[in-house]
Every structure is written in structure tokens, then in C-alpha cells.
């Protein structure tokens, strides 16, 4: 078993006719993901390497039974595309687009939460990979194989780094979930931790955080209350100077709040072991699970 995506995933890509949207959609299909449709307004009736293109997401749902959407449209239009997917009844919306205005994210998040019929992962995330089942997004799947370690991360490339270290130590993954580093992630650490906790295939969870916000601190509380499986943590940004924004809207330290040290401490206080480097994360995983 995996979480969120698998062989039942029926993917529609919005922005499929853009160069990035096309490139990654075809890679996802090559990996084995069931890509059933693409959407680009005004290009309905065309196809992208055999994938039918529609004008609206609703059409992709009605005609192709799409249940998962990958959002690849440019930032000014991405929230509209997310909301369109929600309205069309898409169950899982994975938003790759980076640079969506924060207030757009806020409104999209609130609508999705209040209506309660879709889950949003991202935006500004690398997507989700369930090795040998499906890959939705931009995670370079070749580095990963099926296994019993679930990975959840705020940072895209860091996910690959940590995942790669685990792979080199012989671990495979149940699912790798990039939740994104934006101000308003649709899905939080605690949502994914809950899913991994309930996933029989996942035996260990790796959680990669970074400076800024309090998502890791809230995750620590959630782990103490609800997660019985072992969790290994990693936090990027121990050496980041305070008050500077480090790329992501998320990656900013203000005062004593949101530092990597504070986050690591919060996790360790709840019994979560925290690796200081990606390599150390793999080492701790080895100690816990053995081989």
C-alpha cells in the first residue's frame, strides 16, 4: 500500500501544453502513472502525445474520470486552476507551481477546507511519488524504489537528497510526499503523518523540515499524541542567520521562533530523533530498522 497516489490514480494535468507541464506529465506517464487527460483552455480537442486535452477540468472528470489533478499553470492563474479542480470534484490536487501569491493560496486553502471534498498538496511542491505505482510531479523517480520508509518534506530538492541517502543505505519508500514550502501549504506535516501512521506498509517515517513557521513544532505534538511508528526528523537551516528570508516564503527566522535548533528540540522533546545532516538521517533509520 501507498498513500495518496497509486494504480487507481487517474491524472489530469492543467497547463499540459506548457513546456514544463508537458515534460513532467510525459515523464510521469513513462513511470507508469495513469495520465488520462490534460487541460488548457482553448486547446480542447488537441492531444499531447496521445493524451487528450480539454478546455475545462470538469470535462476531464466527466469524460476521462480524472480523480487527481497536477497543477502546472503559471502563478497568476494557478489558484484559479486549483479552485477549478476543487469545483470539478477532483479528490487530490497536487500543485507544483511556485510563486503563487500568498493571498490566492489562502483563499484556495479555505475553500478546500470548508467544502471538505478535496485534498490539496502544495503549492510549490515537488509532488508525490509512490515507487513502482505512480509518480505525480517532478520528483526524479529513478533514485527511489518501493519500501517501508515514508518521507514527508517541506522542501523539494531536500526531499531528493534525503531520499537518496536513504536509498543508498538500502531503504525503499512507501510514498514520498513533498508538501511544499509556501506560506499556506494545503497539506501539513500532521496530515501526512496521520496517513503514514495508518498505512500498513510504512514502518518508519522521515520528516524533513526547515526554518520558519511552527509546522514542525505542531508535528511534534501530533507525533506524541497520535504516531506510534518511529519518526526520524531533519531540519535544514541550523546556520541560517535570523531575519533573512532564505528563498521560500517559509524559510525565514524571526527572533528565537522558528529556528532549526528550536524545531529539533521540540521534536527531540517528544522522542523524535533528529539527524543533523541528510546522511545522519539515513544512519538513524538504519539503527532503528536495522537491515
Amino acid at each position, binding site marked *: 500500500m501507498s498513500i495518496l497516489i497509486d494504480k487507481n490514480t487517474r491524472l489530469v494535468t492543467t497547463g499540459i501544453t506548457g513546456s*514544463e507541464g508537458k515534460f*513532467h506529465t510525459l515523464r510521469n506517464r513513462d513511470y507508469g502513472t495513469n495520465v488520462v487527460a490534460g487541460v488548457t483552455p482553448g486547446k480542447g480537442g488537441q492531444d499531447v502525445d496521445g493524451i487528450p486535452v480539454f478546455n475545462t477540468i470538469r470535462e476531464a472528470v466527466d469524460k476521462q474520470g480524472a480523480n487527481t489533478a497536477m497543477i502546472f499553470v503559471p*502563478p*497568476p492563474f494557478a489558484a484559479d486552476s486549483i479552485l477549478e479542480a476543487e469545483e470539478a470534484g477532483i479528490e487530490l490536487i497536487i500543485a*507544483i507551481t*511556485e510563486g*503563487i*501569491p*500568498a*493571498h*490566492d493560496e*489562502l*483563499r484556495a486553502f*479555505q*475553500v478546500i*477546507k*470548508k467544502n471538505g471534498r478535496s485534498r490539496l498538496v502544495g503549492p510549490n511542491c*515537488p509532488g508525490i511519488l509512490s515507487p513502482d505505482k505512480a509518480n505525480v510531479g*517532478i*520528483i*526524479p523517480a529513478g*533514485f527511489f524504489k518501493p519500501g517501508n520508509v515514508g518521507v514527508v*518534506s*517541506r*522542501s*523539494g*530538492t*531536500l526531499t*531528493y*537528497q534525503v531520499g*537518496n541517502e536513504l536509498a543508498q543505505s538500502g531503504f525503499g519508500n512507501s510514498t514520498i510526499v513533498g508538501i511544499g*514550502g509556501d*506560506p*499556506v501549504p494545503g497539506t501539513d506535516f500532521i496530515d501526512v503523518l496521520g496517513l503514514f501512521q495508518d498505512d500498513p506498509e510504512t514502518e518508519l517515517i522521515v520528516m*524533513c523540515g*526547515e*526554518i520558519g*513557521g*511552527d509546522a514542525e513544532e*505542531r508535528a511534534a505534538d501530533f507525533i506524541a499524541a497520535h504516531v506510534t511508528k518511529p519518526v526520524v526528523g531533519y531540519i*535544514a*537551516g*541550523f*546556520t*541560517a*542567520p535570523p531575519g*533573512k*528570508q*532564505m*528563498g*521560500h*516564503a*517559509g*524559510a525565514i527566522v524571526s*527572533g528565537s521562533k522558528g529556528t*532549526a535548533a528550536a524545531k529539533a528540540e521540540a521534536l527531540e522533546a517528544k522522542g523524535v530523533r533528529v539527524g*543533523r*545532516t*541528510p*546522511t545522519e538521517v539515513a544512519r538513524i533509520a538504519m539503527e532503528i530498522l536495522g537491515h
Partner: protein
Amino acid sequence: MDLLEYQGKQLFARHGIPVPSGKPAGTVEEAVAAADEIGYPCAVKAQVQIGGRGKLGGIKIANNQAEARQHAEAILGMDIRGLTVFEVWIEGASQIASEYYASVVFDRGAKAPLVMLSTKGGMDIEAVADEDPDAIARLHVDPLLGFQDFHGRRLAYEAGVDADVVRPIGAMLKKLYNAFIAEEATLVEVNPLIITPEREVKALDAKVTLDNNALFRHPENAELRDRSAEDPQERMAKERGLTYVKLDGNIGILGNGAGLVMSTLDVVKGAGGEPANFLDAGGGSKADAITSAVEVILSDSKVTAVLFNIFGGITRCDEVARGLIEAFSQLNPSVPFVVRLDGTNDVEGRRILAEANLPNVYTEATMDGAAARVVELAKAA
């Protein structure tokens, strides 16, 4: 993007939020002319993004033209905690009966705007929050509903403002909230929000942070600048669309993705090195972005070695390799480069790089190995 006080007040005025009338000035003559126009007494206020500028001599009251000139001369060009004052804001001096605090914050944890109000204005609000948290009334507003009259009443009553200003304070909070939404701010703060002896409510200061990602919808805001807060390298990077933060060390760092770059800084530091910068070339970095990034990194003369740490997802390693080759042909760098390429099209990237056979470029297979190598090379330089 953080606005200067006067930029924030001009934004407030557009949304009907009462502010003292004033004018910005970049020279002493402009400042004197502005003061004459506004009348005396007036305040001469240094425009820098730093708290406590009053105590550091950045705010002075001028009772006549001579004093206005004297204060403008003193303040323009002064250094306030490392920031140079390029502009002053001249505004009519306000009479103050009470000082309150008001703000609207983009609360990422709650995923909703948070409105705060306190009668403990004119002080460091973080100190108030630590010492007397109950002195700050807080309320999350559902962004789909917007700020309702009851929000204003509840905040005003809970903060304990004077009974006669409950309504005007509520109205002011509503306007602040609406400005926060309309301008796509992540912070709108008024400290102090004053009550004059005539019981008028006014924003005596203004702190506004705008969402950079939304500036395309707000061309009038996109043009605003704060010269005092600009570092030359950071400006250069910004113009090139790169996220660059200058640090104190000598190892130039380039990576893709904020998390991986931060992790790289940690690992380099762990290996005994001192990073010279944070540089996130971003998702989908193209060859020319890489060339620009190398230019920015090398513009810092302290840099003695550079580390490329790329794990491609949306970024393609072949593009990175081509960018590095192009950068070498344009810039002919004299410092060593350590390159680690993994991820999308990594085989192709490594092949391109190998074939180019660039001088003084070392490839490493792992992040730890690359960090160790660059630290060694930087020390040897």
C-alpha cells in the same frame, strides 16, 4: 517587500486610513521646503526599516525653518544600525492623548489573517506579548467572509480601548484589514495608533510588508524601493530573479531549492567551512540563470571557492552544466568550483561537464564529499 514608513502611510491614505499629512524628501532643501509647506511644528523622520530609530536620533521635532534644516542635515545620510538614511519624511507634529497598537498579520499557522489590537501602543509589541500577553486582543478573520463589524467591536472591547473610540477604532481596523487584503500584504502594522485630544484616530507610524509574488498585480507597489536596505550583491541577484542572501564567509554556494541550499550551508559549516552566501537558483533553472548566478557569487571578492550542489527535479542537470560552461566562457573565473549533480538528466549533465573539461572544476558524487572538497579548496586558496 518591506515598505518605508512614508510609503506605508501613502498606501494607508489610499485606503482611507487617517494619517498625518506629510511629504518625503531626499535632500536638505527638499526637506526644508516640505517643512515650510506642512507648517511648524513638524517631525523630521529618518526613513529606514529599523525599530527604535527615535532613540538613535532618527526622529526630531522642528519648531521653525532653522530647526527643520538643522535636523534634515543631521538625519539625511546618517547611519542607523548599518543602514544609511537616504530619505526623510516630514509630517505635521501630532498631539497625542493615547497610544494604541494595531496590526493585521498573515498567520501561517492558522492559515488566516490575524488582527491584533492593544492599548499598549508606542512600545515594542514583542516585549508586550512576552510580559503581558493579555494586553493584546487577537482575532482571526475568515478570509472568505472578511472583516465584519463584530470583529471590530470584539477587538475594541477586549483590548479595553476608551468607550468613545470603540466605533472609530473598529472602523480603522476594518480599513486596515481591507488594505491588507487589497494590497496583498503579509503585514500591516500601526504603532502607535494614536487618539488625539480631539478624539480623532490616526496612524502615526506605518509598517507594511507586501507579498513579492503578488506585485505583478500591483504595479504601483512594485515600483517602490528602499535604497537604504539594499546590498549591491543582493540587488544584482534580485534583478536577475535569483534568491541570494549575503553571508560572511568565503565559500560561494549555489543550489536549487531553499531547503537543499540551507542544508548545504549546514553541511559546509559542519565540514569546517564558512559560506559566503545563500543562493537558490530556483526551480527549473535554465542555463542563463546559472550564468547569472555565478556572476553574482563571484562579485563578492571574499569568495575563494564555489560549491554547486544540484539535485534536479524540475531543474535539469544538463541545463546546469551548460550554464556553468557558459559562465566559464564569459567570466573565466579564477577560483575553484566543486560540482555535485544528481537528479533529472544527471547522466547527461555529468557527461556534458566532463566533455567540456573546464579548468579548476571538480565533480563529486555526494553532498558530503562535495562539502569536504570545497572546504579543503577554499582553505588552500
